[in-house]
């Protein structure tokens, strides 16, 4: 069974601009989620320097006992990361889909200020649909 625990989007300076919890595990209050976001931002930046491989662009996957963390960084430095159950497949493609939704419903919205928290109704609606579709595709129901 594959499930997503939560989705975070952080801007290029490390501030949390979007956060959504799915499922009952791993829920945090707002302050904690802000801390997780900045923590991940710093870790991502440090890993780029620490990497023995030349031209590394940062952590893409973090595997732990009770969760997996998949991260996607766009060319502009905006990071999308999702905390999911261990062994969940196809999170990279889901992250790319979410990136596309971001470019469509957030960046083309004249009322959205760049780097500010996302408050776009259409983005929420389509995100829910995408996650739902992904869940159905993965679990078959």
């Amino acid at each position, binding site marked *: 069974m594959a499930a997503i625990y939560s989705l975070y989007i952080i801007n290029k300076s490390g501030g949390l601009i979007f956060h959504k919890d799915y499922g009952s595990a791993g829920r945090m209050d707002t302050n904690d989620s802000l801390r997780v976001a900045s923590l991940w931002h710093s870790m991502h930046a440090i890993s780029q320097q620490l990497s023995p491989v030349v031209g590394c662009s940062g952590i893409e996957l973090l595997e732990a006992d009770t969760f997996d963390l998949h991260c996607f960084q766009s060319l502009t430095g905006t990071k999308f990361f999702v905390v999911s159950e261990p062994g969940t497949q196809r999170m990279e493609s889901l992250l790319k889909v979410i990136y596309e939704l971001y470019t*469509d*419903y957030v960046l*083309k*919205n*004249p*009322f959205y200020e760049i780097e500010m928290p996302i*408050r*776009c*109704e*259409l*983005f929420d*609606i389509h995100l829910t649909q995408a996650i739902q579709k992904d869940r159905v595709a993965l679990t078959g129901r």
Partner: protein
Amino acid sequence: MIGVGKIKQYSNVLDKPLAKGKQEVSLSAFAFLFSELVQYNQTQVDNIAELERRLEDAGYAVGARVLELLCHRDKGNRRETRLLGILSFVHSTVWKVLFGKVADSLEKGTEHEDEYMISEKELLVNRFISIPKDMGTFNCGAFVAGIVRGVLDSAGFPAVVTAHFVPMEGQQRPRTTILIKFAEEVLRREARLG
């Protein structure tokens, strides 16, 4: 050489036939341009009513020009003189050229004689736009309302055109209705024409 046609040279640029133009334009490019238009106008105004008026004025200019172009290119320089004629022209031809499809529906208002409504499930200009809660009933479709007003005004049917969100039961997103309220003289002329 076989198959090489001779391109007819026009001495006067005004004699060249009007090109059909590119049938396809990038939606993303338009969305970004429109988003910037809205943002630019937001910096120039103090309130929402003013912003709506500015978007409408921008659309008015487009409407006037679109009418000229379509009358010449698609209708062979015939002009509409009847109310239903101009309404179906806007509903089908103008919509098809601007948005790639005819409008969803054209209805006559039930309460007033001079009101007509063009409805659309979602206007193309609003496709990527989410209105923040504190902006109330503002609708970027005011741009499209301006286009319709431009077409009607230049065709000799002065009207007041506005765009409204109409919530529908069972649907998450409200429909958009362009409400057209014709001036008195239009109705009198129409009655006279019989």
